[in-house]
């Protein structure tokens, strides 16, 4: 594979929930790539479909949700059509997952060492002693002090930040090419949050692992990601380099979102706010889903669905915010 080839390529992904009361389209026309060693941040508000995108990529959609269209390619191999048994081998071996709550993603009745060894031996041809040594090495790599003494301990004996490190060690156990991290720092305190994002960045650089970082926190994205994908009502509305999206957002939704974050630098009397709230899945307006809340919406916006410009960077908008002169 050439250097330029993406690690993960998602094309026109469509996920729908088929319920008795009709079909709800939760993701529609989502396309993006992740290069090896790259961190793609996926941001959006609750219900925008960011977690669902991650779940679809690792093949863990729960019925009645299912992939209704589009393709997911990992290292040149199509994975959305794999049979469940094969997908199980891809998961863990090639794709690792880190979830929000470190307490519920660890087995409370197994020692941390046992969980690591099980994962290692499932995916790598190592014997017990080698697996054990690797478990200790992994814990050391994610920054857990005195890993030898921690291996025989249970998850409840670890603090929140340390547990999240264990979860990261588990995700890394089989040296996956891609890690899906769904709100990995949301349940943690700010001081611990900074430690975990720094760890993710370092691991990503040293192992060349691609990371899809799903979060609602723009601050975490700005600090951690290389590129950002902004989601709204199941669609990608903006995609681009993190500096550009944060400093000069093109989509009115991204611009509104950025303006509504209280600044550390200065104190305004009134925060900019986006009126209204995100539409429910069953009631996504025709045309651009953001049009009812958009300050620059026109008649065209309520009819035609805007798409991301070819090449994948930019805003899916008929009236994008003008680029500032200095860019």
């Amino acid at each position, binding site marked *: 594979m050439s250097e330029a080839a993406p690690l993960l390529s998602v094309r026109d992904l469509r996920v729908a929930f088929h319920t008795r009361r009709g079909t709800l389209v939760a993701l529609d026309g989502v396309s993006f790539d992740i290069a090896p060693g790259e961190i793609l941040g996926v941001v959006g508000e609750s219900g925008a479909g960011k977690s669902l995108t991650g779940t679809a990529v690792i093949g863990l959609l729960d019925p009645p949700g299912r992939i209704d269209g589009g393709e997911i390619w990992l290292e040149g191999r199509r994975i959305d059509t794999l049979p469940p048994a094969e997908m199980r081998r891809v998961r863990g071996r090639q794709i690792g997952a880190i979830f929000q709550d470190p307490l519920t993603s660890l087995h409370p009745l197994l020692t941390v060492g046992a969980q690591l060894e099980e994962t290692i031996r499932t995916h790598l041809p190592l014997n017990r002693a080698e697996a054990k040594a690797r478990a200790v090495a992994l814990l050391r790599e994610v920054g857990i002090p005195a890993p030898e003494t921690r291996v025989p301990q249970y998850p409840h004996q670890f603090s929140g930040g340390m547990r999240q490190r264990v979860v990261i060690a588990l995700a890394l156990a089989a040296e996956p090419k891609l890690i899906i991290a769904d709100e990995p720092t949301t349940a943690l*305190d*700010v001081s611990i949050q900074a430690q975990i994002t720094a760890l993710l960045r370092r691991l990503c650089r040293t192992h060349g692992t691609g990371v899809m970082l799903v979060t609602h926190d723009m601050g975490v994205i700005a600090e951690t990601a290389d590129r950002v994908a902004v989601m709204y009502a199941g669609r990608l509305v903006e995609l681009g380099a*993190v500096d550009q999206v944060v400093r000069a957002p093109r989509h009115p939704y991204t611009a509104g979102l950025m303006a509504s*974050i*209280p600044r*550390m*630098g200065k*104190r305004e009397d*009134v925060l900019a706010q986006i009126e209204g709230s995100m539409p429910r899945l069953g009631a996504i307006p025709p045309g651009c889903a953001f049009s009812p809340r958009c300050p620059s919406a026109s008649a065209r916006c309520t009819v035609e669905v805007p798409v991301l410009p070819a090449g994948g960077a930019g805003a899916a908008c008929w009236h994008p915010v003008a680029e500032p002169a200095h860019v």
Partner: protein
Amino acid sequence: MFEPIALTVRDAVCLFDVSPPFLDRVLSGARRRVLRAVDGVSFTVRRGRTLGVVGESGCGKSTLARMIVGLQPPTAGTLRLEDMPLADGSLVRPRVQMIFQDPYASLNPRWRVGDIVAEPIRELKLLPGEAAVQARVAQLLETVGLAAADATRFPHAFSGGQRQRISIARALATEADVLVCDEPTSALDVSVQAQILNLMRRLQAELGLTYILISHNLSVVRHMADDIAIMYLGRFVETGPAEEVFANPRHPYTRLLLETIPDVQQPNRDRQPLSGEVPSPIDPPSGCPFHPRCPQAEARCRETRPVLEMRDGREVACFVVR
């Protein structure tokens, strides 16, 4: 311009006994264990102002909030809402209400919104007659940006931000003067957070409310608070006017906390993430509780505990930076 004091807290202490059961203690000789959730906190809040209390999980900020509203009796010390003079010279005791973090858990799902908001009015007998109560409920819902017709709906029909508006309407229904807001926007999305923060600011200007805002989100506190208190392991380590504390943090913990938070505007500043974790309040370190994580700690920090000392309108509990 000094407003009268609304709330005075003097040496408030809250201890929780987390000892093993009696028999275990006798059999295994385990000692009693006491968690010092709030360990001697004193402050005052003036009317119409906002005090922001910031700290990491387990620092005692929520226990402090619960003590102020009376949900948690203090082990020692006093928390006192000062009587307010009315226009005619008589004194009235102010009311305090709390806004909770989780708008999904703090509203009774089986009550209509109108009843949720009307309950305090009926209970406190603030208005005579049901018609007056209903009119007041409609007015309150409109004040917080909902429609009067929403009174007949149930909480499940509302989004998180709208539910938080209902919580605020319920608190205002008591004609409360002091609102204790415990992480009021932590469960909300940023665009909705901005709506709620704007609403809180507007209500403060219109009704002269006093806020005690508990949060771990420094940028929210920065936006809302006039004064700020940084809490660590049950104590205040730095207090002062918010502008000054943010512009020129003195205590090493405040400095590290401010450095640590991700800032959208200046990502990847040259900074040093805070190492280590908050120690257990059951077994706090000797001396200054922050010394194991403090880059400037000296020998005496391990032995004696610094107390808050006032200088230039700021209070800092630290030997090194005073």
